[in-house]
Structure formats: structure tokens, C-alpha cells
């Protein structure tokens, strides 16, 4: 029969249409909210999703995974009385590895000796050029530069972030990437313990 194939196809569309309602009703009967809740959004991007698939941005936002990366920021540790301990030593590896070369670092020189000090005077990232590859965070030996989760940075002008705008506390980093943070902290503690043990060993030997 001519038109049978079309009807067969339409049955798929009809089933999808039907699913949107049955799915909503079943969530309602279970007393759960399918929209504007984390659970609902998670369900919509799981393998069992059916019915309405879309996430109504910006009222709803997809939950980004831990590894999600969007433009870098600099991490500082909160010292006593609100002092910012910037982790960056201005070694320049991020600037060297950056594929579009959007990182600009001004190294600090000691005014007395003229020797470089391991703190950046200023640090620029040209966010319009940044391609979000994450190399800077990947190759930073001091865990000082990390990729952010905040992707709503649309603006009318050019986005060149200087060090003030780039600095974010380690607690923020721990918030967006808990697993990475714990792993790095453990590695750091292990390293420090090893160093202390070594120092102790050499001290006792002397």
C-alpha cells in the first residue's frame, strides 16, 4: 500500500509526542519535578531520557562535569588575615605552551638585586583569543592556573583579564573540581612530607 512507509514513520513521531506527556505525568505522579531541578536535568541527559529533551537555558542550565573547561583563572591560597598567596611563580610555561599565545606574563624583578622573584607583577589572558584548550592548566607545575566552569562571559567589549580579574581562591577551585583538588592536595602533602623527611634525614646525618 502506498503511504504505508509514511504512516510507519509517523508512528515514531506519534510515540515521541505521546512520550512527552506520559513522561511528565509519571514524574508528577511520583511527586517529583522534572523541570528546574538538578534531578530532572540529570535525567534528561541520561540514557533513559525520553520525552522533552531540551534544557531551557538560561532558566535551567546543564550541569557541567568536573572536567569541563572554559577560560583559565589563577588560583591563590588564602593566607592569614586575608593575604592572597598567589601560587603562580611566573615561570612562563603556560605562556609558552599556549597555542594561540594569549597569555602575557610580567615577571617581577627584585628592585635591589634585579634578580627575578617568583611572583607575577601582572598576568594577562586575552579571553577573546583563548581557545579553551586547557594546556596551561595541564602543564602548570604549580597547579596555579586552572580552567574555569563559568561560561557566561559575553560582553560588549574585548575581554582582556588582568591578574586582579584572574585570581580566584583555592576554595573556589575546590568547589568546582573537588576530585582534582583532593588529588592534587594529597600529592602536594606527600611531596612535602617526603621533603621534610629528607631534610630531617640530612640534618640527623650532619
Amino acid at each position, binding site marked *: 500500500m502506498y503511504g504505508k512507509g509514511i504512516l510507519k514513520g509517523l508512528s515514531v513521531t506519534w510515540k515521541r509526542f505521546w512520550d512527552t506527556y506520559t513522561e511528565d505525568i509519571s514524574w508528577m505522579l511520583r511527586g517529583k519535578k522534572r523541570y528546574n531541578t538538578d534531578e530532572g536535568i540529570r535525567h534528561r541527559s541520561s540514557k533513559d531520557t525520553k520525552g522533552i529533551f531540551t534544557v531551557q537555558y538560561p532558566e535551567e542550565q546543564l550541569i557541567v562535569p568536573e572536567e569541563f573547561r572554559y577560560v583559565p583563572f589563577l588560583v591563590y591560597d588564602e593566607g592569614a588575615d586575608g593575604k592572597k598567596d598567589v601560587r603562580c611563580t611566573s615561570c612562563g610555561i603556560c605562556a609558552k605552551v*599556549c597555542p594561540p599565545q594569549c597569555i602575557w606574563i610580567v615577571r617581577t624583578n627584585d628592585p635591589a638585586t634585579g634578580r627575578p622573584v617568583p611572583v607575577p607583577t601582572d598576568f594577562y589572558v586575552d579571553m577573546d583569543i583563548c581557545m579553551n584548550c586547557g594546556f596551561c592548566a595541564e602543564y602548570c607545575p604549580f597547579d596555579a592556573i586552572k580552567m574555569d566552569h563559568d561560561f557566561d562571559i559575553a560582553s560588549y567589549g574585548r575581554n582582556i583579564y588582568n591578574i586582579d580579574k584572574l585570581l580566584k581562591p583555592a576554595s573556589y577551585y575546590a568547589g568546582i573540581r573537588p576530585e582534582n583538588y583532593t588529588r592534587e592536595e594529597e600529592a602536594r602533602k606527600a611531596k612535602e612530607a617526603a621533603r621534610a623527611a629528607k631534610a630531617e634525614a640530612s640534618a640527623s646525618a650532619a
Partner: protein
Amino acid sequence: MATALQTQTVDLVARFPAIVTADARSGYTGFIVNKENLVEVATAVRDEFGFDLLTAVTGVDYIAENKMEVVYHAYKTIGGTGLAFKVQVERVDPIEVPSLINIWAGVDFQEREAWDLYGIKFTGHPDLRRILMWEGYEGHPLRKDWKEPFFEEETKPFKSRWPEGKHTFSEEKNPFRDNLNFPKDFDPEKYIVNKEEDLYASLERYTTKDVEGSMKTDHIVVNMGPHHPSTHGVLRVAVTLDGETIIGLKPVMGYLHRNHDKIGERNTYLQNIPYTDRLDYFNSMSNNFGYAITVEKLMNIQVAERAEYIRVIMAELSRVQNHLIFIGMLMNDLGAMYTPSLYAFEERELILDIFEAVSGARMMCNYFRFGGVVRDVPDFALKKIHDLVTDRLPAKTDEMERFLNENEILMARLKGIHVLNAEEAINYSVTGPVLRATGVPYDLRRADPYSIYDRFDFDVAVRHNGDMMDNYLIRFDEIRQSLRILEQALKQIPQGPINSQKPAYQVRVPAGEAYGRIESPKGELGFYVVSNGKPNPYRYHVRPASFVNLTAIESICRGTKIADFVALLAMLDIVMGELDR
């Protein structure tokens, strides 16, 4: 399984003693052919040695030796390793090399590209116009002495970034001053870009004939694009029509051109990986794969076992979502607006969620490193892949088939519309599903296995009619085969390290050349990389599948109706990021 013909070593020197010499440079392979005898040797390569598929043609500018080289990579469609042969000419304009277009029609666009970017004149090429740059452009950008307008330094990293990195905009520092070339007697006030005559002259024309009993008609030239919503991006096509029938057609491209090759030569090896994401932006995982195996070939390193599996899993997931999008977008082009394509997008989103969880980005994954991958796949992602592969994707593929395959309108549009036959397809260097739909079982995962594809049990999807319907159905076959590979890979994946190398932001690559290729969802994706031992590649060339497949478009479309053109173009599955590079 290798047959005698596949493993037979090729000794061109013995066959042409005075004409051909082996390439003796360290790290190089292949043969150097005398320029005068190129056509003769190439004919023998095709007819006597059986290398019927010429995949890549490109130039290399050896400025220090004052030489320009053209590199050809020929393969057999029955599988096996390839043959590289080269021609070297003095680097003095005009640089002339005989064209091989009468032996392999597929060199058409690639020779035009070499002319455009290197200024190598291919004598005998019937339509040697610029292809990626516009007519009237001055200079040949891939030459080593050519500099772009915002030129800073030959190679990255630039010295201005550290330790005195005061941010400056390049346009402030360099307002088109030193490195902009104008022709002699150039007056910008009087300059009008009007170089389209060559394009229109290259189109086949229909001369008005007064046939008895028929209406007197004339041809008409129609420009489709570059802003046509159905040409998959900014592709422009100039078509001559006789009524509704296409009699001549030329694609005009380069609207998205950014000279990926030149950027690649400025970058370090590592910095190129995120740039390859931007080639075929649907399949950044496959692009990474191709580039990574090429550089690994040069570096001569092994890939960590677990990483091999992760790579295959990612590449096959990428293929599944590419083919789903292909099906959806084809329906868009046929007029079934959005419903099928959005159904396809749902599954794609779920796959992209996985990419995002492992690599951090949905499309620009930047996931591969030399020797492995950047980070391990977390368990929840592996579980999700497993659920999708065993549970959801097979069901959804079936649903898609139920939804579309028996549709009478679709059948009327697809069945019996001829795309290519096997001979034409091979002659035009067409690869990928389009070639396999003509009955040639040429899949690099089997024909020239790379990575660990030889460990999996799967069939090469083949269809035999070469019409649109087969081109469409073969995508379903490939999705099913990819799911088969994925299932096996998920079962076999071992624990272990994910990179065989120590993480390093600069890799040491010994001098030499390498041509690496993979079966990307769109066809053969090749990378030709020449290293001179420095931190940056000396030559970095991409052989994109869409670009070479598009060579056949005129032959495909001639004689068909203009209404079918959009669908035929969709069949080639082009993507402008890769086509224009």
C-alpha cells in the same frame, strides 16, 4: 590475510633506472622522480604496480636547498601500504611540474591547492585557478618566505609573551606595515576585484542549438551560496543550467580559509592538537587521532595499551554521532525540516556529554596526546558509554530506520539517483562511505590497519549500487559496525597507564617525514608532517576527506536536476572547517 599483490615491494628504481632515485634523506621514504618523466612513472605506478588510489598531493618548500618538492602518496584499494614519490624542482619562478590529472582525476583540487599556496604550476591542468585564496591574491602563502599581515615571529612561543608580557593587540603593533605585498603599480584606489571571468569561463557552456521541434533555449548561470543554508556552510557553487539540468558546476571555496597548514608550521607539535579539533568540528576526536598517530610515527613511540582502547572508543563514538547527524542533515536538505535532525541530535548530545566528561569540551575535545590520551575515562563515563552502546543507541538506530527508511517520499528522492560508480570514485580519490557505497570495500581500519583495529571483529560496510539510497543506507550499516567495535572495546579495555610518555610541553621529534592516515567518518583523513628536528614542524599538511571528495562533485552532478544537487552535496558529507581549512 595480505595477498601477494599487497605485500609486493615496489622498486621503482629497478623499473626506471635512470629516471628514479630512492629518497636517501634520513627519515624519508619513497622515490624521487625526474620532472620530465613524471607522467610516465605515474602511469606505471597506477597500471603496472596497481596503486589505483592517489590520496594526497602536496608541496613542500625546501627554501634552504632552493628546492620545491611535490609529494604524491599512492595506495591500492585492495589494501596494503602505500607508495610515496616526489618531484623536486628548482625554486625559481615559474615552478612547473606536469599535472597528473589525466592519470588520477582526483588530483584536481589538490594540484590547484598546491598552485594556490605554493605557486607550483601544474602544466596540463585544464583549470589551474586559485582555490582557497581569491583570484587576484598576491603571493603564495605557504612559501617559507611569505609572511602574514600580523606576523610576529617565525615560530611559537613568541618572545613578547614572557617575561615582559605587556598585552598589546597585534593590529596596534603592526598596522599592515612591513609584510604586506602589493603588485607593482598597485593603486588601491583603482583596484576593483573582478576576477570571476576565469571561474565562469571554466564552467561548461551550452551553445544554443536550434533542434527541430524543440524550443530554443539558452544556458543560465546560477550562483548558489556562499550563504545558502543547504550547502553546509559557506560554500559557493556556480552552476550552469539547461532548464533544470546541471551541465556544468564549479565549487568556489575558501570563505572559511585560515591557512591551517601555515598556523601548524608556526605552532609546536603539541600546540597543533587543539587546532586539529577545528578541522572537522563534528569529529574532533578523529582529527586528534589522525594527527597523533602521524607524529607518533615520526617520534617512533608506542601508545599505552589502555589509551589505545580509549582512542578507539572515542573515535567510534564520534563516527556514530557523525553518521546520525549526517542522516538528520540529509533529511533537512531533502526538505524534511528539523524533526529527523533533532531526533539525531538527541543521541548526539548524549555522546557529546561523554566527550565533555572525559575531555572537558563537547566539540573541541583536545583529548589526545602523543603516546596516549590526556586523562583516564572516569568510571561513570565508561558506564554511560556502556549503557548507550548496549542499550540505547541500537534501539535508536532501529527507530531511525523505522522512522525513515520506508518513507515513500524519501525513496522517490533517493532511489536510483546515481552518485558514482566504483571506477569514477577511485579515479576521483573519493574515500569513506561514498566509496564503499559503490562496492569498493576500502576501509582503512581493515585495508591499512592503524592503532588496534586489527583486534576487533567487524565487517566493512559495503553497498553496491552507488546510488543515493545506498549512500544513505551505508551510514546505518556503519553505525551498527561501530557499535560492534565499541562493544568489544568496552569488554577488552585493560587497566593501566593512559600515556606511555612523560607529560612534556615540548616534544622532541627526530628529522624525517611521515604520512599518517585514519578512516575518519567522512573518509580518509591524512596528515603529512615533515620535521627538521626543531620544536616546530617544518611542513604540516592536512589531507581532508571532504576536500578531496568534493573533487568529484562536478562529475556527480552533471546531468542531474538542480533540485538533487543539494542532496548530492549532502551525500558527500562535507564540513567547511575541514574543506576550507
